[in-house]
């Protein structure tokens, strides 16, 4: 047998570097680690790479894991995966610390102490599943299947969502919720455009980008995708350099990279956007053709009843002249004029408003205002930046055959909805849910399943949430770690970490092409953990009846294969591969060619898993008309959808009288009246009188949603920009600091009407005056040795406020005062 | 007898100085050779060695000079007193 030199080298792999070190001049640079010598003696050290999808954030980057003897030692970006093209973010690199975390839950556990007491005992999988299934069977038999709630905290757009929803449907509960949910965040787009999806922004063909707090490099759905895009703005050639303006109350990572940062008061993005619109309209810089042809409600209009309605133009011209806007926002009127003119002249442009610090009580309206600028500027044609991606041609899971018990359960009203019609455009708000659980309204919750996420840590009203969790008789957590939330669980069914399990992740929100990534195990499970998807199937089998047939697959991998097979058969798109550019695919497509011919599905599958994913950069040709799925078929400045919904609610509660209407509007906390409600407008954020400063919270790339807190590398890097490691800080402007007698590095108290926290002050001019900015992510009271007790959680002093329309929490709506801590 | 032991001890101590000085010289020459071998600014090393090595030898030399000078006299005195 002949061994080729190349193969021999591959065999040496990881250790070859050390073995042959002396042949080269570099021998002095590295010393040979003892372990390596040991391994070399054993003849081991075979290097291999495995591609999978990162699960550290919803960004869905493709990663390549380096394995030495099957042990992962390094992670890099998968260079051919189109979302991140080899790029990575810091938290992706610390994924190995998730896999090998000493605080992982190693086997199923049952709580033996009081909720939150931290006393656990290990049980076997069979035992755990038996307990749960017995309970669930009982519930079903007593027609209480709807009382079982499933909250899915994984932000990844994975097959798991379908999977769980199938399971719940078969079991007979309407209560499957995602928290946080993309659905809630897409409400503004839905209202104006009728599409319930996050738009993707394409910077390639843009000359001017105006971002209203959109922190896409840090808090976006896919920060690395946007980093790649951002890099294109900064290519060598001058022509590519689009101008990029960031409006935010603090200098976020995105703002730091903008050509200009404009500080603004929190919660006033809507007013500023309309101020810009005022200038655009006044100076006739808007795209008249587009506005006339494709929009509704720009001019004043008359409905079929002959009633005249206020148009966007009159509203803006009447209420948002720059001086007034300047008063509200703290941005100088000259600056408003300046950016509006720049925006009007530089076309095509893009106006961004989501994925950032807009989360406030008025965020839906303000994002509507921001988004409507895109319509004013006519940014909705195929060449320019705004687009919505197509769904990948994945096979739907087989339809569930629902039995009688389940049908009854499914018909029950969902418990995530507010009982007093708040948040009309969402099926779940954590606030309503907690309220309903505590009030047993409309029915008590008898079991709660939690898949990933840490809602207790993310929620604004910890205390009530904890009470609610205590009240629920059975709380089951599918998590790899003992989070604050799973501390309240009765049973923990530990999941694999994402490096040990199969999943299918498709179409990351805001990414500009259709794609499917395959998450696959790079290592055998380290502990006695199981993939939650398969656990659900087992649970279904134990419960029996319709539930056992809901997911007829051998295992989760087969389920993914089943879904992916349709892609193979559709012949669309291509498996990602080296050097495959979107433009090339497009070129082939136009000439009727197909990239990649596969002899069999198995071949396709193997290549798919080896390379990490499939994508289709070719958009179905869309006419502008198809972009708008509103009642009028146009972009609606005047949201008929919102009007319809509100009319509906009014009617459902009784007669449509002005009093009833007023009552509803009031209960929704909307301050505008008349037609203005349905137009983009500025809603005042309710304030506590006499409390001078705004509290702003934000998320960092190193620790989004606080889930990286159990990784020491991310804890250390948490404040790398400010050189604050493992700790929180509060950013304040030097003048604000001087007024309160605080200097850089001092400890200060931040006090709101809810409580107070102590942080170290970071005094620098990168934050709006009268604003205190505290990063979110630290301050865990549980979650393992690396997380517990480091930093503070700013949400503990944030008031329990929500966006009135979409039900998202509003962590920017709190006022605070600060004082020097002694 | 007693004087002889003392004398031997004194000679030993003076030779210790020489061992010390020679050791330093060897050390410096060693470093010099390394720097020549690695072509790492040997000029500087040579310069330093040229100054340092003689200094140590002179110091040891002075000590020895005094030692010999004093002892010669002592012996003379002892001889003359015996006579």
């Amino acid at each position: 047998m002949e061994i080729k030199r190349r193969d021999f080298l591959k065999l040496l792999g990881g250790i070859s570097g050390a073995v042959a070190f002396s042949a080269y001049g570099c021998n002095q640079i590295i010393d040979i680690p003892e372990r390596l010598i040991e391994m070399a003696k054993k003849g081991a050290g075979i290097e291999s790479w495995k591609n999978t999808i990162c699960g550290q954030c919803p960004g869905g980057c493709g990663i390549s894991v380096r394995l030495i003897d099957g042990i992962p030692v390094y992670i890099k970006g998968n260079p051919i995966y189109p979302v991140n093209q080899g790029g990575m973010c810091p938290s992706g690199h610390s994924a190995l610390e998730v896999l090998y975390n000493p605080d992982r839950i190693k086997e199923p556990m049952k709580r033996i102490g009081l909720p939150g007491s931290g006393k656990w005992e290990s049980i076997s999988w069979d035992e755990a599943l038996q307990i749960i299934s017995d309970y669930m069977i009982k519930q079903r038999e007593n027609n209480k299947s709807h009382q079982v709630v499933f909250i899915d905290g994984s932000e990844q757009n994975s097959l798991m969502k379908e999977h769980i929803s199938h399971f719940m449907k078969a079991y007979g509960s309407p209560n499957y919720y995602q928290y946080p949910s993309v659905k809630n965040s897409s409400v503004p787009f839905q209202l104006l455009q009728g599409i319930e999806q996050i738009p993707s922004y394409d910077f390639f063909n843009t000359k001017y980008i105006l971002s209203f707090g959109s922190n896409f490099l840090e808090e976006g759905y896919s920060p690395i995708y946007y980093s790649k895009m951002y890099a294109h703005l900064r290519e060598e050639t001058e022509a590519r350099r689009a101008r990029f303006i960031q409006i935010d109350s603090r200098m976020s990572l995105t703002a730091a990279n903008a050509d200009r940062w404009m500080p603004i008061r929190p919660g006033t993005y809507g007013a500023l956007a309309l101020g810009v619109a005022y200038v655009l309209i006044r100076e006739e810089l808007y795209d008249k053709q587009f506005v006339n042809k494709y929009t509704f409600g720009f001019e004043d209009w008359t409905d079929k009843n002959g009633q005249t309605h206020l148009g966007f133009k009159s509203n803006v011209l009447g209420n948002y002249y720059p001086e007034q806007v300047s008063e509200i926002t703290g941005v100088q009127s000259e600056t408003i004029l300046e950016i509006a003119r720049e925006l009007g002249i530089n076309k095509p442009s893009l106006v961004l408003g989501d994925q950032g610090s807009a989360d406030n009580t008025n965020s839906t309206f303000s994002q509507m205002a921001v988004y409507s600028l895109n319509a004013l500027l006519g940014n909705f044609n195929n060449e320019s930046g705004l687009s919505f991606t197509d769904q990948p041609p994945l096979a739907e899971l087989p339809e569930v055959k629902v039995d009688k018990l389940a049908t009854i359960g499914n018909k029950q009203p969902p418990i995530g909805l507010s009982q007093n019609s708040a948040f009309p455009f969402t099926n779940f708000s954590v606030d309503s849910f907690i309220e309903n659980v505590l009030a047993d309204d409309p029915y008590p919750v008898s079991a709660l399943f939690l898949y990933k996420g840490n809602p207790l840590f993310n929620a604004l009203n910890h205390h009530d949430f904890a009470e609610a969790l205590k009240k629920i008789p059975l709380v089951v957590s599918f998590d790899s770690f003992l989070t604050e939330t799973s501390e309240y669980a009765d049973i923990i069914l530990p999941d694999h970490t994402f490096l040990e399990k199969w999943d299918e992740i498709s179409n990351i929100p805001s990414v500009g092409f259709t794609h499917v990534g395959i998450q696959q195990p790079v290592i055998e499970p380290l502990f006695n953990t199981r993939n939650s998807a398969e656990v659900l199937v087992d649970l279904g089998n134990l419960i029996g009846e319709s539930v056992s047939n809901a997911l007829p697959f051998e295992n989760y991998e087969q389920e993914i294969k089943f879904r992916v097979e349709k892609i193979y058969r559709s012949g669309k798109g291509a498996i990602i591969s080296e050097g495959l550019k979107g433009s090339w695919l497009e070129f082939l497509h136009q000439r009727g060619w197909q990239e990649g011919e596969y002899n069999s599905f198995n071949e396709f599958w193997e290549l798919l898993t080896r390379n990490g994913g499939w994508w289709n950069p070719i958009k179905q040709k869309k006419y502008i008309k198809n972009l708008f799925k509103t009642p009028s078929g146009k972009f609606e400045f005047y949201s008929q959808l919102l009007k319809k919904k509100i009319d509906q609610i009014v009617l459902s509660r009784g007669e449509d009288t002005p009093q009833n209407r007023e009552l509803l509007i009031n209960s929704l906390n909307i301050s505008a009246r008349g037609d203005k409600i349905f137009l983009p407008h500025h809603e005042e954020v309710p304030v506590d009188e006499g409390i001078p400063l705004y509290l702003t919270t934000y998320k960092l790339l190193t620790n989004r949603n606080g889930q990286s807190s159990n990784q020491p590398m991310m804890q250390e890097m948490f404040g790398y920009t400010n050189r604050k490691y493992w700790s929180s800080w509060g950013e304040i402007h030097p003048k604000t600091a001087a007024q309160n007698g605080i200097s850089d590095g001092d400890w200060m108290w931040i006090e709101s009407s809810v409580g107070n926290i102590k942080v170290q002050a970071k005094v620098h001019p990168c934050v709006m005056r009268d604003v205190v900015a505290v990063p979110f992510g630290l301050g865990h009271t549980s979650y393992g040795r690396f997380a517990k007790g480091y930093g503070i959680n700013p949400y503990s002093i944030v008031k329990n406020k929500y966006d009135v329309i979409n039900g998202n929490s509003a962590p920017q709506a709190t006022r605070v005062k600060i004082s020097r801590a002694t | 007898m007693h004087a002889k032991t003392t004398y031997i001890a004194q000679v030993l101590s003076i030779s210790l100085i020489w061992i010390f000085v020679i050791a330093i010289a060897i050390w410096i020459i060693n470093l010099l050779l390394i720097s020549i071998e690695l072509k790492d600014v040997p000029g500087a090393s040579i310069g330093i060695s040229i100054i340092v090595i003689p200094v140590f030898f002179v110091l040891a030399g002075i000590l020895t000079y005094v030692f010999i000078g004093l002892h010669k006299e002592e012996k003379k005195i002892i001889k003359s007193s015996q006579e």
Partner: protein
Amino acid sequence: MPKWAMVIDLDKCTGCGDCMAACKLENNIAIVSPEEANVGRVMFWMDMITTYEGEYPNIKVKRIPKPCFHCDNPPCTRVCPVYATYKNDEGLVGQIYHRCIGCRYCMVACPYTAKVFNWYEPKWPDEFKSCLNPDVSLRMVGVVEKCSFCAHRLIKVKENADMEEREIYDGEYSPACGESCPTNAIYFGDIDNKESQVYKLSQSSRSYREMENLGTEPKVIYLSKRE
């Protein structure tokens, strides 16, 4: 002999910190205890500097990734008393951990503050020990360490090229930071090779090096549009 150099495009760099994390993971850099980290003993071979320019509200913040500059005329190697830091033929400034006596003279002499010191014995939880990179040796207490331009990767690349009987092609050898940069802001290659991207970029009108007046000839070149 090639001369390895790095170009960092500050216009592209967002300051996301990925290079820092990639570096920590690749080079088995110890994570010090939180108290230690906050008194200035944190270890990053690739550090991130924040600079502010202008007056509020027209303020510009720039983040500058700072590895070891692998100076062509390194001030650190001149002062080392034991040859524990030296420059090799390919221009890489190396650090020999097993020889270092921990006098920290090189740290003091480095105008760029690029080196870090092991104030205590670096410790990892046992679990994390299994995912340490076997190519890079662990450091011990009391020695100085710094960015090596991932020299262990060079050895492999050379070996591969040698086996295949070819030259190393441009971009084949890249340190961990450059490999994973989400904006491709870090370029790496042989600056003596006129065909290499690094050489071309280094000739750009945007290029500059830190503290050129010191004559250290850093081999990390920054690109920044001067305004």
